[in-house]
């Protein structure tokens, strides 16, 4: 017997309030009678009865309030009996990439599944199980059920993903599972105590550590270099505490450009130069050596095209023209850049079509380009008939970048120059955000999107005074490069990290083919874009609207790929010292049984009874004070 939330016992003060109200109400009501002859010799019997004489409604109300207070305080009984019966269990599975780690007896997830089956088999018949998973987000795999066949079917349908398990998702999963009598957590690493605490669990979950120590190599990054110009680089990391041999193969355009084996020191990284590749296009690096985790053994990159492309840089500021041209050539030296002042009439050949037009603080009238990048977009000029693609709604004297795609919240906001606030069309997505210096309102600082007539990018801040080349404002340069890369990327190939939201303009319903062979249909939004979240590393194919787009999903997470932790063998599930062992069938032990529902029901019945008593009195006496 005890209280789960003793602080809520403060609600019992309502009984004291009831007594005070009651005593006040018990003060003698005055009634007018026809004559005192009838009452002459019937005075109050004893003085103390005036205060202590309590009637039935009072006791009913006091009992009801007491019951409600106990219910709020979480009153429970410690019941000794068989575990189970009609108990509920929650099986929480980590579906992060590390659960794909392969040992001698299969993957870590196989071990988790086997451990879960043992828990289910040991539970008494009638116990129900809820299966909760988490990786990027938490979710329930089906409704809670006591059917063993249904549970096995759900377990068979679970698959780990190639994304890192999100701590917030773990917290959400534990919150989802906390209503169960017992929680079993199957993961390759224990849940941080702070997360368990945040989830508000009354008892720590039973942790089943699965997965073995395994040597793992991962491709951390892949730089394809510039075709026929500069070397590419692959960064390989050894997570093992032992030297590992690594056989690496790099292919570009279907041709092997690098294939070699080497030894990597324990817990070290190795930069492997290769190339330069001969042609632009997809570059794929793959570790052929068998290791713990396969998802981080493949990585894709896109080498810039070797085809000579024309780019136009328009800016009234010669310094800006020079900076933008340099950056563009750094991204792809095969660009043939034309830099011009937009105020000069014959600065460039207006019949020429450009692959990319970078328009700084000027309009795009008369420019034919496959992609346009508006930098510090020009406001709508009076007399302009055609509305601009990017309407400027305001400006700030000094902006600061606070958030950038792929990085998230910046540790220190980057102070920029003047910026113009642009109302983005729905088909564009912000790639970095910020606001005016010292202001709370935020707006997009860089954005990119693809309309039917080509790709459009936007850089809202002014890049005068060599802002993009300022080493203290490197995030501004990276945001600009990222935006330019999006604009010049081929429309049919995308390289994205797993777990990212991929947006592809197909303008029709499209079929998505996943790396594991799974297929599903995607419906475009009002701007013709389909969105999905690649959870597996590898190649996705999106076909629809007469086009086919290949999306290559790369996976790497330093925490998840590190399988060298001191974990016991996968075949043996273990629990932390505080965790209780799984209850055996028919085992008897003490467990708390709350009776909050019963108490609340009793309180309602007492209130109902009081209402009946009062109604009967009112009908009988027809007196206002009843």
């Amino acid at each position, binding site marked *: 017997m005890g209280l789960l939330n003793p602080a809520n016992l403060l609600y019992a003060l309502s009984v004291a309030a009831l007594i005070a109200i009651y005593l006040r109400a018990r003060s*003698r009501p005055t*009634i007018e009678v*026809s004559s005192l002859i*009838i009452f*002459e*010799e*019937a005075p*109050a019997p004893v003085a103390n009865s005036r205060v202590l004489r309590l*009637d039935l409604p009072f006791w009913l109300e006091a009992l009801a309030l007491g019951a409600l207070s106990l219910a709020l305080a979480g009153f429970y009984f410690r019941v000794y009996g068989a575990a189970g019966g009609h108990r509920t269990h929650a099986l929480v599975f980590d579906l992060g990439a590390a659960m794909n780690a392969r040992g001698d007896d299969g993957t870590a997830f196989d071990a988790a599944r086997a451990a879960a089956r043992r828990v289910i088999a040991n539970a008494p018949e009638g116990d129900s199980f809820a299966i909760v998973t988490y990786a990027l987000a938490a979710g329930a795999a089906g409704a809670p059920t006591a059917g063993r066949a249904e549970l096995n079917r759900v377990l068979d349908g679970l698959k780990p993903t190639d994304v890192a398990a999100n701590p917030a998702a773990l917290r959400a999963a534990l919150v989802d599972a906390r209503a169960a009598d017992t929680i079993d957590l199957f993961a390759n690493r224990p849940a941080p105590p702070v997360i368990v605490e945040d989830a508000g669990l009354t008892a720590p979950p039973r942790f089943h550590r699965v997965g073995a120590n395994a040597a793992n190599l991962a491709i951390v990054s892949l730089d394809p270099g510039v075709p026929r110009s500069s070397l590419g680089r692959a960064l390989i990391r050894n997570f093992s505490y032992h030297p590992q041999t690594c056989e690496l193969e790099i292919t570009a355009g279907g041709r092997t450009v690098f294939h070699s084996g080497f030894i990597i020191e324990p817990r070290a990284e190795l930069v492997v130069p290769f190339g330069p590749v001969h042609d632009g296009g997809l570059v794929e690096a793959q570790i052929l050596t068998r290791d713990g985790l396969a998802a981080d053994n493949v990585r894709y990159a896109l080498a810039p095209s070797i085809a000579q492309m024309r780019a136009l840089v328009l800016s009234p500021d010669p310094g800006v023209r020079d900076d933008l041209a340099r950056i563009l050539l750094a991204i792809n030296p095969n660009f043939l850049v034309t830099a011009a002042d937009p105020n000069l009439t014959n600065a460039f050949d207006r019949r020429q079509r450009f692959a990319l037009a970078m328009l700084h603080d000027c309009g795009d009238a008369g420019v034919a380009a496959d992609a346009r990048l508006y930098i510090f977009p020009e406001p709508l000029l009076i007399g302009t008939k055609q509305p601009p693609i990017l309407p400027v709604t305001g400006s700030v004297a000094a902006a600061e970048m606070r958030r950038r795609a792929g990085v998230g919240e910046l540790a220190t906001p980057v102070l920029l120059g003047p910026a113009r606030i642009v109302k983005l069309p729905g088909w564009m997505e912000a790639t970095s955000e910020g606001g005016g210096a010292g202001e709370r309102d935020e707006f997009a600082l860089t954005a990119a999107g693809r309309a039917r007539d080509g790709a459009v990018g936007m850089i809202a801040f002014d890049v005068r005074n060599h802002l993009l080349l300022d080493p203290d404002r490197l995030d501004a340069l990276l945001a600009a490069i990222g935006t330019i890369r999006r604009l010049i990327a081929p429309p049919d190939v995308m390289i994205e990290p797993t777990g990212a939201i991929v947006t592809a303009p197909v303008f029709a319903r499209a079929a998505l083919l996943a790396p594991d062979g799974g297929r599903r249909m995607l419906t475009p939004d009002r701007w013709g874009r389909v969105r999905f979240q690649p959870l597996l590393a590898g190649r996705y194919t999106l076909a629809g609207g007469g086009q086919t787009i290949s999306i290559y999903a790369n996976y790497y997470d330093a925490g998840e790929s590190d399988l060298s932790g001191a974990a016991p063998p996968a075949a043996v599930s273990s629990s932390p010292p505080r965790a209780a062992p799984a209850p055996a069938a028919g085992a008897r032990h003490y467990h708390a049984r709350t009776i909050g529902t019963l108490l609340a029901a009793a309180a309602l019945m007492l209130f109902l009874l009081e209402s009946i008593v009062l109604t009967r009195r009112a009908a009988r*006496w027809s007196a206002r004070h009843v």
Partner: protein
Amino acid sequence: MLAARAFEPDFLRRLDGLMMQARRIRAPRAGRRVLGRSQGAGIELEDFREYAPGDDLRFLDWNALARLDDLKIRTFRPERQIEVTIMVDASASMGLPADDDKLGFALTLAAGLAYIGMSENDPVRIAVFSGHGPAARFAATPFFRRRESYAEFRPFFGAVRGGGETRLSEAAGLLLGQRRAPGVAMIVSDFLVGPGDYETAFNDLLAAGFEAKAVHVMGDRESAVDYPPGNYRVRDCETGVVRDVSFGPREMEECRRRIAAHAEALADFCKRRGVMYARAFGASKLDEVVVNEFPRLGVMA
């Protein structure tokens, strides 16, 4: 209001066959002769009947004796003139408990008695009284003799309002102060006064030659002492005196006993003084009162 029931056809139909018996038959005043149904001395021949020993030979029909050689006694309809005044207590105590509507009940009884009184074509009036001293009130209707005039009471009933203290002796004094010929005086009241008051009232009426009748009215709830248990401060609605009391089953039983004792004391006094006494406890028992209690007032079929 309960008094409205006094004018309902069903109620009146039940009273149609009843008549009021009067102990004293008074000679009519000059020019105002009224015929009654009771056997007695009079000038209008009503019937013949066989002679019985002891009959007054003055009423022997000598012509019939000479012609038929049979002894026949002539009977006459009596001549009577009895003013009936029905005095209804309209003090504040008649208004409580409110849901009992004692005043309405008393007016209904008074109306019923007036209707019965009219059966003999006696002049009947209804009066209400309350208060004492300068605030004493005695309001009465004109005398009505015929039942066709019964509806004339209705406007008077509508104007009656309860209030003031109960002073039966003062009300009797006001009636006697009108110096009318003695008749029948009925007092319809809850008699929630001291014994001295109602004794004085009836003694004065009897001394003046009135035939006095008492109708003791109480409400349903009042007579049952039906109050919720608890501690109360009760206030006399007439005097304003306040008293703390506690109510429980035992106390309520004590109150009921006191009411019974009070009623018994009144009935005993009436019996001793030749005052007809009827008890009407509870408006819900109106029919029962008409059947069982009205005969005590000299009402007969």
